[in-house]
């Protein structure tokens, strides 16, 4: 089911009564989610991503704008008539009901005409449980399950009515690191098997990048960029997106463009033909450098950490922003560990320029 958001806006009255006015949680969203895709809504906390999810689910009504599922305008429909499945951050499993009854619960609510027999409901519940591989535990209470298992039950409950859209609110945040990795693959698998259009909210960029078909990066209720994860990573539209994606994070320097060259401190690190002279932020991805004793980017060498596959080089530079600079190079790359300084060549496609004032991307032709 294609989901279209049209100029979607949600304003709340300001909690701080003295300040008054309104807080805009979601500001004029326009985007289209193609049928059967997995979409990650990504942003720091308080950026309006959960509100967006609530608006799509119908738990909250938008101040302005429209929501379409396929061709249908669902803006004014209550949640139960939208055909959405929602998985909550804390799963919201009913603690007094067994797994079977939890999964069956949405089916038992069906109105006349759609009513199922007991056997049908049990069959459907079992089918959903098998899909998420929780069918061994049908008679257990949620408290007797691990976090990951509870998560699966919650997904099964959301899927049992075969929703048009599946919504997941921070689905992995309550799991430990190992389970998180496993569960995100699981979510991907379930989504592919059912083909349900799925939207999930996360503040963890790695999570979003690893399983989404598309990511939507948000900041303070405004969409910053929409695209395939790798495209957004390789082509951030502004400094915020560049900083938000990637671990370790992008290295940002204060720099300037003079005479078609990008300068960081005294070093002219890149060509920048056609860019007028101005002050800029220079972002270089950690993997965007090659050690070269004659390379233009010269920095103080603080530490070299070798971690199996690759080596991370911790440096310092006067023009840096943030606490430290970290670059990832191949572990077989030659680098003089005893030297106090290190020189790099910069890969042009891994370095981005951003306007000092607007923080918008300046493309180098």
């Amino acid at each position, binding site marked *: 089911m294609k989901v279209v958001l049209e100029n979607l806006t949600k304003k709340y009255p300001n909690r701080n009564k003295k300040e008054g006015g309104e807080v805009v949680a979601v500001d004029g969203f326009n985007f289209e989610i193609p049928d059967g895709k997995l979409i990650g809504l990504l942003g720091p906390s308080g950026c309006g991503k959960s509100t967006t999810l609530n608006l799509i689910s119908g738990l909250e009504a938008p101040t302005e704008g429209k929501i379409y599922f396929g061709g249908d305008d669902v803006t004014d429909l209550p949640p*139960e008539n939208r055909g959405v499945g*929602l998985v*909550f951050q804390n799963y*919201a499993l*009913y*603690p*007094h*009901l067994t797994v079977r009854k939890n999964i069956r619960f949405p089916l038992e609510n*069906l*109105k006349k005409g759609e009513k199922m027999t007991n056997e049908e409901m049990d069959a459907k519940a079992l089918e959903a449980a098998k899909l998420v591989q929780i069918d061994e535990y049908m008679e257990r209470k949620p408290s007797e399950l691990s976090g990951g298992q509870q998560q699966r039950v919650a997904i099964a409950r959301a899927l049992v009515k075969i929703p048009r859209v599946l919504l997941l609110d921070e689905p992995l945040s309550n799991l430990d690191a190992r389970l998180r990795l496993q569960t995100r693959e699981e979510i991907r698998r379930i989504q592919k098997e059912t083909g349900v259009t799925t939207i999930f909210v996360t503040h963890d960029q790695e999570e979003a990048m690893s399983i989404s078909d598309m990511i939507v990066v948000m900041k303070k209720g405004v969409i910053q960029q929409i695209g395939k994860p790798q495209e957004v990573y390789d082509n951030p539209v502004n400094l915020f997106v560049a900083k938000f994606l990637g671990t370790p994070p992008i290295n940002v320097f204060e720099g300037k463009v003079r005479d078609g060259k990008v300068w960081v401190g005294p070093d002219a690190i890149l060509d920048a033909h056609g860019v007028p002279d101005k002050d800029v932020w220079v972002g270089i991805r950690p993997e965007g450098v090659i050690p070269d004793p004659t390379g233009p980017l010269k920095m103080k060498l603080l530490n070299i950490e070798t971690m199996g596959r690759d080596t991370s080089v911790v440096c310092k530079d006067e023009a840096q922003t943030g606490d430290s600079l970290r670059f990832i190079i191949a572990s077989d790359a030659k680098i003089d560990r005893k030297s106090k300084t290190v020189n790099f060549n910069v890969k042009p496609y891994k370095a981005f320029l951003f306007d000092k004032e607007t923080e918008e991307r300046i493309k180098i032709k």
Partner: protein
Amino acid sequence: MQNGKNYKAWLYLLPAIAFIGVFMIYPLIDVLIYSFEEGFNFASQSFFGTGGYNYSYVLHDPYFLQAVKNTFILVIITVPLSTGIALLISVGLNSVKKFKEFFQTVFFLPYVTNTLAVGLVFMILFKKTAYSDGLINLLITAFGGSAVDFIDGPYWAKMFVLCFYTIWVVMPFKILILTSALSSVDEMYYKAAKVDGTSKWRIFTRITLPMISPMIFYLVITGFIGAFKAYSDVVAIFGTNLNAAGMNTIVGYIYDMLYGNSGGYPSYASAAAIILFAIVLTITVINLLISKKNVKA
């Protein structure tokens, strides 16, 4: 565990154990002994013999049987009704947005009011005097009914006043417990139910009720125990001559046997106390057994 530590643990427990022993365990055992000593006399500390006569006397005493009947009627009517009404009011309070705290305070006020003072108010509402028929009777006659003497009149009228009064007095505590139980149910369950298209009634019966069921059972058990021990409320409305009014309760009977006009019979009082204890224990055990089966959260 090491013996030394054990000894220390008992030492720390000693004050509490001594207190409970002297003021609870010893009197309990003493009451049990009294109840088997026939014709015990406080003054001479003597008795005629031992045996079950005290029980036999009490169980054949029409006043005691009346007291048991009154107590049971009171328990059976007031406990379910008060819990049910308290639940209704709490659910109502929970859905009110404006003035919620104000209403909560209003509903809690009777709890801090003295039982006897409230009893007086009820007297004024219900009692027929030479000057007035009481407020309730004025209302009844205004609507074309005939006045009833609620305090000295027919049994059902007196029972009605007593039940009404008891429900009114126990309500605030139950509302307090239930409103806090209701607000402790996580909002996300309601959201989840809403997305699943659950009707309001089903949300209440399938989610809210099971989640607050431990608190409801707590209220039912303490309600039963409290109603079985009813005494001061009855005195507040009907005065101290309860046997004559036919409104005595089991505790009232025990008191009368000890200190009342017919007082000075500690053996009978003890036997009645033990019977009351047995009744309360049985009911509580049954309650606990049922709750174990049904309280799931």
